């Protein structure tokens, strides 16, 4: 059990003692005995005094407990008799759900974001239950396919804060496709994950449009003191909601994309739709599916079509059909 968690349990015990109307004004010795009895080992006066101070003043805890000491009764009491730190009702299902979330969050190793969320969630949990098992006997039961570390993820917290607080940023970006550096000023709207890669999406002053930047290609982001530029909501919705992947093809608008898939891929797509706009237009007697998507075409969508070339055929739009065919021919010739 971590010290932090044990401290929370002591707060809970102290709260219960001070709130107990049957035995009002618990003394310091009474509080020490109660903690020792519950937690099974000894505490000194200093620890409990620090706990009381934390319950009263610690901003991170946020209890703001109105604890007073009555000289006449030689014990502690709440100046607000209705006060208790135990106010958040959680049932077992809630706790299990939060535990699962904690385990998922633990996958995002290496950021203070993780630490802060754990701290906050443990506080909530401990207010309701004094001890929450952490599947220690079972070992890890959730595994994502996120790699242990990836370049650029160290910027995640920076961009999370800039995005949530609407602060423009400047960073140096290296384009893998153009093999060029650029220093760009971006007004960030969203952090987006796609296939284990993180991206920041925002309005780029340099490009005068919404753009996506891979965090792995970003150097030394800086926060800027300048007015934040909001993109029109409709434009953001199109960009965020109607794109498969992260890099929409420039100048392409949202459009119907139709493709035919063999049954083996069709079954996967029925179980795991590519996008919420996926629609089965027709099912042939041999199991072949005609599927449509309503999307802004993206590089990732074309890559998906290419990687499943033996199992599908693009039908519409014709330009995309041609593009995929040409890329196949190029790959067959092993062109650079």
């Amino acid at each position: 059990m971590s010290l932090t968690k044990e401290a929370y349990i002591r707060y809970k015990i102290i709260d219960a003692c001070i709130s107990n109307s049957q035995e009002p004004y618990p003394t310091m010795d009474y509080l020490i005995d109660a903690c020792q009895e519950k937690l099974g080992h000894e505490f000194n006066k200093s620890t409990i005094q620090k706990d009381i101070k934390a319950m009263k003043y610690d901003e991170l805890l946020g209890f703001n407990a109105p604890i007073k000491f009555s000289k006449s009764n030689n014990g502690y009491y709440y100046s607000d008799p209705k006060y208790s730190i135990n106010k958040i009702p959680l049932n077992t299902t809630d706790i299990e759900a939060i535990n699962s979330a904690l385990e998922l969050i633990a996958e995002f190793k290496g950021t203070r974001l993780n630490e802060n969320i754990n701290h906050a969630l443990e506080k909530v949990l401990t207010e309701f239950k004094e001890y929450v098992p952490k599947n220690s006997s079972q070992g890890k039961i959730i595994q994502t396919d996120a790699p242990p570390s990836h370049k650029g993820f160290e910027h995640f917290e920076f961009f999370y804060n800039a995005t949530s607080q609407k602060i423009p940023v400047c960073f140096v970006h290296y384009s893998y496709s153009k093999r060029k550096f650029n220093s760009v000023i971006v007004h960030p709207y969203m952090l987006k994950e796609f296939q284990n890669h993180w991206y920041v999406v925002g309005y780029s002053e340099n490009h005068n449009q919404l753009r996506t930047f891979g965090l792995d290609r970003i150097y030394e982001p800086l926060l800027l003191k300048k007015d934040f530029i909001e993109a029109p909501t409709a434009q953001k919705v199109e960009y965020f909601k109607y794109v498969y992947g992260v890099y929409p093809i420039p100048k392409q608008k949202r459009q119907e994309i139709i493709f035919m898939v063999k049954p083996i891929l069709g079954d996967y797509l029925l179980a795991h739709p590519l996008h919420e706009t996926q629609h089965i237009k027709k099912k042939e007697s041999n199991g072949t599916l005609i599927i449509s998507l309503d999307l802004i075409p993206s590089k990732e969508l074309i890559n998906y079509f290419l990687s499943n070339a033996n199992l599908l055929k693009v039908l519409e739009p014709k330009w995309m059909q041609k593009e995929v065919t040409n890329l196949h021919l190029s790959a067959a010739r092993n062109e650079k």
Partner: protein
Amino acid sequence: MKNNPNVSFLYNLPEYKSNASPKLLRITTTPSYTKVDFGYQATSYYISGGWVRIEKNTFIRIVKTGEKLIVNRIENIPIAPQRLDFTSTKDWLYFSLYFPPLPKDIEIIDLIEAEKGDTKDFNYFKIELSQNNAIELC
């Protein structure tokens, strides 16, 4: 605003053009230093992309007065005679040079690696740091 000695500014220079190979990307001025960021793309002129390094006495020259500010910290690029040999024509390098803080009211600077150098030296002229280009940092 720019004259406030306690404020840091960014000069984003996407349009700055130079004959020198590393792209001068941006300059940050703070009360304690001036930082210049560069991006270098290895060239196909050499089979394996060539090499890079920086002279230890690279300096900023204030055009108006001729005053020189010598580089005092170099990040991510070797100092001559050491050098970084690229291993392909597709390699790239991001690096930064730190100089003493700029005096206030400076509008134009040069950044010089070799005073009588050629196009292979990292020399940049007439870099404008005007009030209009300055963006205050948080």
